[in-house]
């Protein structure tokens, strides 16, 4: 199965996890996702997800001015975002366990 299909469901979770780890701007988040192993995700999807999470109140954003280049819009997680992250983390682990049992494979941690 194409991983992009799998990804659509959990991109929110992945983005929240990355931002919870450390505040980041658009491409920074993309880079970290890729280095974590999620190669397939498109930049536009990540940016749109960041936008949506921000609109729904799960993320905060602030602008950091820069001398060298353009200003950067950084995203950070807030309490609501952390709560969402926890809830989704639990959901994921339950789901992964269910799928593992269904497929007869070990759960990948």
């Amino acid at each position, binding site marked *: 199965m194409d991983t992009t299909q799998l990804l659509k469901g959990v991109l929110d979770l992945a983005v929240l996890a990355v931002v919870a780890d450390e505040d980041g701007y658009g491409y920074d988040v993309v880079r970290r996702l890729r280095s974590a192993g999620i190669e397939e995700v498109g*930049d536009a*999807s990540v940016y749109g997800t960041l*936008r949506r999470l921000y609109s729904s109140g799960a993320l905060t954003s602030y602008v950091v001015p820069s001398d060298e280049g353009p200003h950067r819009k950084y995203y950070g997680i807030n309490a609501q975002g952390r709560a969402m992250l926890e809830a989704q983390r639990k959901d994921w682990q339950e789901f992964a366990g269910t799928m593992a049992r269904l497929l007869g494979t070990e759960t990948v941690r």
Partner: protein
Amino acid sequence: MSVLADTAGLDVVGYAAAVRRSLVGLSQDQVDDLTDGLEADLADALADERHVAHGRELVEQFGAPEAYAAELRAAAGLPAAGDARARRPLDPVRRSREVGTRVLGRLRAQAWWPPAEAFLVSLRPVWWVFRAWLVLQLATAWVLGDRRMSWLPNAFAEWVVLGGLVVLSVQWGRGVWFQSRSTRWLPVLANVVVVLALLPVLATMSHRSSQVEDVYRAWAAGAFNGGVQTVYQDKPVDGVVVDGIQVSNLFVYDAQGDPLQDVQIYDDRGLPVRTTFDDGYDQFWFPGSTEPWSFVPAADVGGQARWNVYPLRGAPTSQFEYDGGSPALQVGTSAGTPPWPFAKAPALVGRGTVPADPAEGTVSASGDQTAGATPTPSGTTGPTAGPTAAPTP
């Protein structure tokens, strides 16, 4: 900075702009929200060494701007373009941009288009200079009136203004100036105005130029000399021209003012002086005539038709018939002399006594000049024809 980074920089701007344009149906705020920092992120992606995109073309890496925009808005949870259109009508600017994008997309699918597009894109600086010139023309027309528009600036100040406008235009075209949102409207508005004014400006100036040419040509032809026009012809007119009008007949009077008939006239080279060249086919009108006349030639001893015998004789054209193609007088009619301008001309002083002698060379130079050298037997000394009477004291 590497060359790649420079060209990539411009591409990023263009790509980002295309993405923004593809976000149809969204308010400007929403578009800005979604695409704020887009150029920076794209540039980062291109420059990132670890990222696969390094060195690759923008479109190759990110896909078509339209697809990028769709992915962006979908991930952001905003409705797709189709839904938005159903709810809110597009403003004309967005709609025309959409059409342009669609046309461009279809064109880009053609095999022959990319080189043509590359060529046109490389001509972009020409447009930058040209639109600066157009702005100058519009400004001249507005400030000084459209009579002062000229193809090249006349005064030094105009050259300076043109130079400044060119700098502004090029810097905007390169994406260096007018980038902030507060000033962006100015060059965009100017661009729109200039594109709309392109044809009118060119038409007006071309019209002015042709007007100037017409006036010059008329002046050269003498239209401004108080009505007298100098006509230059390649070949001199054959015939007799008096006061600008070619005459059809010559009327000869002798020294006493009496009319003469059948006078043969030759010029200084011995060639016959002719007034008509029509072999009798043409019709001629005289002042005061009710119908036109045609002329007949005289015949000489050798049987040649002679047209230098004046006054030319003829008859009203109605009395001619064209038998065998040549005009001939009808039976029963004969050629007559056309009406004389006057019955008697003023008599001359000191002439008309000695018959002309061709062998003598100068006939009239000697003797006849002084009155009294040779008395005139006819006795008329002036225009008045009456006998001279000696006044008695």
